[in-house]
């Protein structure tokens, strides 16, 4: 540890509203000023002054000790997604900071507001390859909305104020603030003001009403309009305006995985899921609509499939807060830039009441085909082999669709998102853009702590679970009521499915010889159960859902079940396969 720099300011007369604090104390005071009462993290040498300062504020700022910094970052994401507040996580320099990178990348691509604070070696040692020194600013730059290195205590208030403002405003995202250890020790005259604008940053583009008028005109004359909605609806808190809009216009609406739960799944205009493992109608009919209205979504390749065969017949309206998303993947006819809530509020005034019964019937006809070929068998299997879908069906029955679903990544994620019933927004938390295995368990911990009044169920596979299962210890320590449902097929199921369909069943490194997960859960003092037969399933799920506290339920499901429908990689959405 290097020497501590002398404070720059000495006995200057203090303004009445400042007080003398160390940088580390300032960090804690700022977190409290920003309304942070919970932070996730992992201590280490370079961040120790901040941890020391937190010691005096344990009653106001609860720190959750994750078992790996990646877990802390996903927990902060889960917290942010469930609560709508900024998630905070702390880590030390070097490996502590590099372990955050996956969480930052996930938060960046899924627009999740988190602020990560990392310790850094003392400023005098920067660039000397000091113990646990890494260029976290350089490393995290491609995966943060903004980042900044603090080397003097007096920079801390402005840097953190900007961090919170930038993370949560506009299109949200992750921000990293790296603070050298000497800046944490340094004393300075502390004064804090929240940030409300940054001159080089436009939070959200001003709404251009002529664009709204153009959009309304297209919508009013459309014969087969079709709405695609994404997380933008949730982030703008525009769920009500969104529902009003589709109900007034009678337009069928399909969701991206990030938009799921913005509209209740049972809504008559909710036609289902888009994308590679989405529903049949929503994919097929993308290529039959005449006006496509994309709201707060970004035309990810998993949604569009082959772009050269995507909605070529349609006029495209895109309601979007981020100008860089316009024309990025799909050419737009009318781009309505702005916050979804504001845009929809204006749009509702200009659209005419309508219904599209015949068009909607097309979706229902497709649903019927999908039910017969895929869904019925998945939810009510005729064989003795348990399916992922029937487990999700029973969970729906027991919770009434009121729970928060947190998924990991893979087959179970697709099945859980396809079949879970949602009645409330901000209830689906998943790694949509990055597809981060290991996301589920720590994100569920964050969600459970962010929304302690709600039932949080995380559905994980045997692959992803083993990437971050040490966070069971954090769940035990915090007494978070996380319900962990492990759908165990003893395979890396999604990769195995692709190997079966596209690589001649050459199951290269996808079979898992697993540990005894029951013993593992017991080792973390978490009540546990395992189901291998159907007649035990319902009672086991009942116990799982109703148990007051964390619970681990493992269900052995079909080893070689596949998720259908499927738009094969490189195919167009209309080439969706039901089998």
């Amino acid at each position, binding site marked *: 540890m290097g020497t501590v720099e002398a404070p720059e300011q000495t006995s200057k007369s203090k303004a009445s509203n400042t007080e003398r604090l160390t940088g580390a104390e300032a960090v804690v005071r700022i977190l409290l000023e920003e309304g942070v009462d919970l932070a996730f993290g992992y201590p280490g040498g370079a961040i120790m002054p901040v941890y020391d300062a937190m010691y005096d504020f344990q009653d106001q700022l609860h720190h959750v000790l994750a078992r790996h910094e990646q877990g802390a970052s996903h927990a902060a994401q889960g917290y942010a997604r469930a609560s709508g507040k900024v998630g905070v996580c702390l880590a030390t320099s070097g490996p502590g900071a590099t372990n955050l990178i996956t969480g930052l990348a996930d938060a960046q691509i899924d627009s999740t507001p988190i602020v990560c604070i990392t310790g850094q070696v003392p400023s005098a040692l920067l660039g000397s390859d000091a113990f646990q020194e890494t260029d976290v*600013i*350089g490393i995290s*730059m*491609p995966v943060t*909305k*903004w*980042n*900044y*290195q603090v080397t003097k205590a007096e920079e801390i208030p402005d840097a953190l104020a900007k961090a919170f403002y*930038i993370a949560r405003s506009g299109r949200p995202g992750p921000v990293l603030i790296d603070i050298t250890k000497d800046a944490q020790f340094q004393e300075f005259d502390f004064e804090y003001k929240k940030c409300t*604008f*940054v*001159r*080089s*940053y436009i939070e959200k583009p001003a709404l251009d009403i002529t664009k709204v008028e153009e959009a309304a005109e297209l919508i009013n004359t459309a014969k087969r309009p079709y709405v695609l909605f994404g997380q933008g609806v949730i982030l703008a808190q525009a769920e009500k305006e969104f529902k009003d809009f589709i109900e007034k216009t009678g337009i069928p609406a399909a969701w991206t995985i990030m938009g799921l739960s913005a509209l209740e799944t049972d809504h008559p205009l909710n036609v289902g899921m888009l994308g590679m493992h989405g529903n049949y109608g929503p994919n097929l009919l993308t290529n039959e609509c005449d006006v496509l209205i994309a709201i707060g979504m970004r035309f990810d390749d998993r949604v569009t499939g082959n772009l050269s065969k995507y909605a070529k017949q349609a006029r495209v309206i895109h309601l979007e807060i*981020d*100008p*860089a998303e*316009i*024309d*990025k993947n799909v050419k737009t006819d009318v781009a309505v830039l702005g916050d979804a809530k504001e845009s929809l509020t204006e749009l509702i005034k200009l659209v005419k009441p309508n219904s599209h019964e015949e068009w909607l019937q097309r979706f229902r006809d497709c649903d019927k085909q999908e039910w017969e070929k895929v869904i019925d068998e998945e939810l009510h299997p005729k064989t003795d082999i348990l399916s992922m879908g029937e487990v999700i069906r029973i969970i729906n029955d027991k919770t009434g669709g009121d729970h928060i679903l947190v998924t990991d990544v893979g087959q179970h994620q697709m099945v859980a998102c396809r079949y879970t019933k949602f009645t409330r927004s901000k209830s689906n938390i998943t790694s949509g853009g990055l597809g981060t295995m290991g996301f589920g368990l720590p994100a569920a911990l964050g969600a459970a702590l962010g929304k302690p009044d709600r039932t949080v169920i995380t559905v994980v596979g045997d692959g992803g679970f083993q990437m971050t299962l040490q966070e069971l210890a954090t769940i035990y320590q915090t007494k978070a009521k996380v319900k962990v449902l492990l759908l165990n097929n003893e395979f890396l199921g999604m990769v195995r499915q692709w190997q079966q369909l596209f690589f001649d069943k050459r199951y290269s490194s996808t079979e898992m010889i697993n540990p005894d997960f029951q013993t593992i859960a017991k080792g973390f003092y978490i009540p546990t159960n395992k189901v291998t037969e159907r007649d035990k399933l319902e009672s086991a799920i009942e116990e799982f859902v109703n148990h007051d506290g964390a619970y681990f339920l493992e269900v052995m499901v079909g080893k070689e079940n596949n998720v259908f429908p499927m738009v094969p990689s490189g195919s167009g959405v209309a080439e969706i396969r039901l089998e």
Partner: protein
Amino acid sequence: MEKQEFTITAYTENHVGLLHRITIIFTKRKINIESLTTSESETEGIHRFTIAVTETEELVQKVVKQIEKQVEVLKAGYYKKKEVVQQELALYKIPTDSLTNGLEVERIVREHNARFLTIEKDFVVIEKAGYRRETKALFDELEPYGINEFVRSGRIAVAREAFGLGKEVEKLLAGVS
């Protein structure tokens, strides 16, 4: 779409690390930056990036949006070749001996509208501003006399119109302050 020469201009804050934040936008898409220059702009405290690339217009449009999206970037835009007045600066170091053997080098320098920056005992430094082809032409003519060192700056360019993006930057700054 055909690849062609573009000049990308960005008005930014003058902050540590912003150069990296901007260049990784190109790296992510495997676009080669042919030259990159940063300098002050006409507005006090506002910095300016000038980046030369040869790419399709569609890709350049997307890259410019990504640049402008960065928190510390105020405004970004792009220009085709004919939409800018551009220059590069070149320095040529040649042996002083080549001047003492006749008037040839002096004639070349004069004809190319170049100038001597310094004449030392062993070497002279010649400066030439112009288009790439012009600095290259001078290089070719001086080469027989021995070029000890040669360097060319990145492209700098201003829009071929009364005001460039800077006007919008001023509006932006006026609007928020």
